[in-house]
């Protein structure tokens, strides 16, 4: 049977078991839309902005573990999607983006809506393709899904000129396997390195496990739990790792890094053996690299060889999938006796007693931390929580105690304001049976409010928890600390009425101004199973995120709430972000 390129593309996507595509039409992809319209297996979600499509596909991928799929037109379609692609790239999220391109003969002619999509996206995709021939469509789609979802996952772009979607050919076979001589991701760790790691682990007296997003993306949460409990070692997690190990477990020290807990950061600083699992020693984690873990031997397990030794020199490097490597380590350590670490644990308990996440409540004002605690209570800690970027993101990470992976969805690497709402929509589509909350700020939410319209069209009920402090709070906090309270452009004088905004999009809006109303409003919102509810919660405008390691400082130089309200920073720190 003869098919056109667009039909072959759609069939290739079905062959990858694609069920949802997030996209937006335009001239270059009209044939593809025509082919999509003629079938019922794949549901297309029409977003209101291509950045929203990419974030929604990203949230969908994070919640489900599947590859998120995006379809956009040429020119402004793909440039609008770039922020979302870069966001997925920084957090290693599997995604396939299909962009239309002007017809092949016009490429390079500055044709209407032509951009060099492959060139523009090169530095923020794992790989990209420009399809030159109709015969490449099926095999390219196959390769794209393979590359996006294996090894260290990431977004892959397929740019397809319009003429190729129109051309006709005999229907190809959609092969089930891909073999690429230039792409052979490593799965298992080297046995020799596993043995060396096991020896180091057994001899260590002040160990700590530092687990990152790789444990979530690599589906290694069960192995991480077994490994940690087998050793009875303290464990801390990065912003991206939260949920891989249960936050409510006794061995968990909380998040580490810039806004990590006192016990997590102090333990990192004093440790003699840091076991990094699927983490990449990002600058938000290490703080001042010269002061990082001064006495520790470092074991680093990661799928990406280039992550190893990039920021920090390591003593034992194990390249492999964290799931496989942890299984091997669990076997290697079975029935072996670790050193006595009881003194280490009593030290940690002392640090823990500092209670670094304690905060002061104030009569008449709603504390943002309380909002997250209430959210946790009302959802029994079982919701998927997406977030935007700012103070609210840190509070959500600190006070919503994630016990399961793929429940905490945020833009950690790129820090993209606007991510939260479309990501929540994508997550709800992936997990319709779960409660989904989007913790946001009045600044961030305004970057993507148009998606409220998409959420009505496809009935993806999400609870929006707007921590409305009237400020670009994270910016304000830095200006308070490091710019002598000169609040340049961190205050928005003209906020919309969010209740009316939600209502105009057909959703429910509730404004909460009094502490006493908070819990009831939250309960009411989650009772509305089939409705999106926008909770506009007026919170303390002056609250800051603590603890905090100011830029340039070390893990043992944290600022604590109520004790070090005014931070200071040295010149070296000012240069950092």
């Amino acid at each position, binding site marked *: 049977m003869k098919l056109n390129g667009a039909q072959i593309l759609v069939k290739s996507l079905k062959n990858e078991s694609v069920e949802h595509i997030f996209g937006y039409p335009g001239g270059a992809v009209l044939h593809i839309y025509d082919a999509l319209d003629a079938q019922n297996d794949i549901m297309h979600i029409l977003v209101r902005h291509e950045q929203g499509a990419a974030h929604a596909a990203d949230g969908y991928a994070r919640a489900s573990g599947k590859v998120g799929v995006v379809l956009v037109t040429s020119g402004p379609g793909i440039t609008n999607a770039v922020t979302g692609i870069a966001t997925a790239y920084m957090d290693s999220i599997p995604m396939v983006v299909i962009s239309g391109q002007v017809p092949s003969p016009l490429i390079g002619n500055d044709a209407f809506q032509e951009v060099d999509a*492959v060139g523009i996206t090169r*530095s923020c995709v794992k790989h990209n393709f*420009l399809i030159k021939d109709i015969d490449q469509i099926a095999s390219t789609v196959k390769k794209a899904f393979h590359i996006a979802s294996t090894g260290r996952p990431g977004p892959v772009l397929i740019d397809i000129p319009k003429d190729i979607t129109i051309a006709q050919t005999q229907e190809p076979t959609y092969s089930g396997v891909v073999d690429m001589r*230039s792409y052979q991701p490593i799965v298992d760790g080297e046995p020799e390195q596993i043995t060396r790691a096991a020896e180091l682990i057994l001899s260590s007296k002040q160990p700590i496990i530092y687990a990152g997003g790789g444990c979530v993306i690599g589906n290694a949460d069960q192995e991480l739990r077994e490994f940690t409990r087998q050793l009875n070692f303290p464990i801390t997690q990065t912003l991206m790792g939260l949920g891989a190990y249960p936050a409510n477990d006794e061995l968990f020290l909380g998040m580490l890094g810039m806004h990590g807990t006192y016990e997590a950061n102090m333990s990192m600083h004093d440790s003699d053996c840091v076991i990094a699992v699927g983490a990449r020693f990002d600058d938000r984690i290490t703080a001042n690299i010269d002061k990082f873990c001064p006495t520790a031997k470092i074991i680093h397990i990661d799928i990406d*060889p*280039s992550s190893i*030794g*990039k920021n920090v020199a390591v003593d034992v490097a194990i390249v492999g999938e964290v799931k496989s490597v942890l299984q091997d380590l669990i076997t290697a350590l079975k029935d072996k006796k670790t050193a006595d670490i009881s003194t280490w644990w009593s030290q940690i308990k002392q640090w823990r007693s500092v209670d670094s996440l304690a905060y002061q409540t104030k009569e008449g004002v709603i504390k943002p931390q309380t909002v997250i605690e209430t959210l946790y209570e009302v959802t029994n800690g079982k919701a998927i929580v997406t977030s935007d970027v700012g103070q609210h993101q840190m509070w959500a990470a600190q006070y919503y105690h994630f016990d399961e992976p793929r429940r905490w969805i945020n833009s950690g690497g790129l820090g993209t304001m606007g991510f939260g709402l479309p990501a929540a929509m994508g997550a709800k589509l992936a997990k319709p049976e779960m409660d989904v909350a989007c913790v946001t700020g009045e600044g961030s939410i305004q970057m993507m409010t148009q998606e409220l319209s998409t959420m009505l069209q496809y009935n993806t009920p999400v609870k929006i928890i707007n921590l409305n402090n009237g400020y670009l709070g994270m910016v304000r906090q830095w200006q308070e600390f490091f710019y002598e309270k000169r609040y340049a452009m961190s205050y928005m004088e003209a906020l919309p009425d969010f209740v009316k905004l939600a209502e105009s999009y057909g959703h429910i809006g509730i404004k909460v101004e009094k502490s006493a109303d908070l819990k009831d409003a939250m309960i009411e919102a989650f009772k509305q199973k089939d409705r999106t509810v926008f909770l506009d919660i007026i919170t303390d405008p002056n609250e800051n995120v603590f603890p905090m390691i100011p830029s340039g400082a070390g893990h043992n130089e944290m600022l604590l709430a109520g004790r070090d309200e005014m931070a200071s920073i040295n010149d070296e720190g000012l240069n950092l972000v």
Partner: protein
Amino acid sequence: MRHIISVLLENEAGALSRVAGLFSARGFNIESLTVAATNDLTLSRMTIVSVGNDNIIEQIVKQLYKLIDVVKVTDLTATEHIERELLLVKIDVNQNTQADIDKKIDEFSAKIVDVSEDTYIIELAGQSKKINDFLDSLGAFKILEVSRTGVTGVCQRRES
């Protein structure tokens, strides 16, 4: 230290810009870069000369491996290897300078590949140092144009 990195990669459109983009995005330096298809026309060989400490070179090698089109990366400077570079230089020649220039050409075993009324085009292949020395030795004459290929190289072991 100076390293010669040999990269075997799929002979695909855009492969060169992926490598060039990687170097500029990560702030790695490139002294020279040569690329051409190999005997297997589906593969290209790229030879990159870069300067950096061990950590940087390790990152360069790892980041190159991460590119999906890259099949194999070898740091030639880590093993016994042969390196060559080709120079074409156009030089002004007149009655007063010809004998001296001919002498230099002899000295370096270079080759005249084109002669006009008042110019030579000289070819020289060799290690970069030899080419630098040759160009230095022509310093007294009027060089009109210099074109160098950049370094290419192979590992001396049978299996690289």
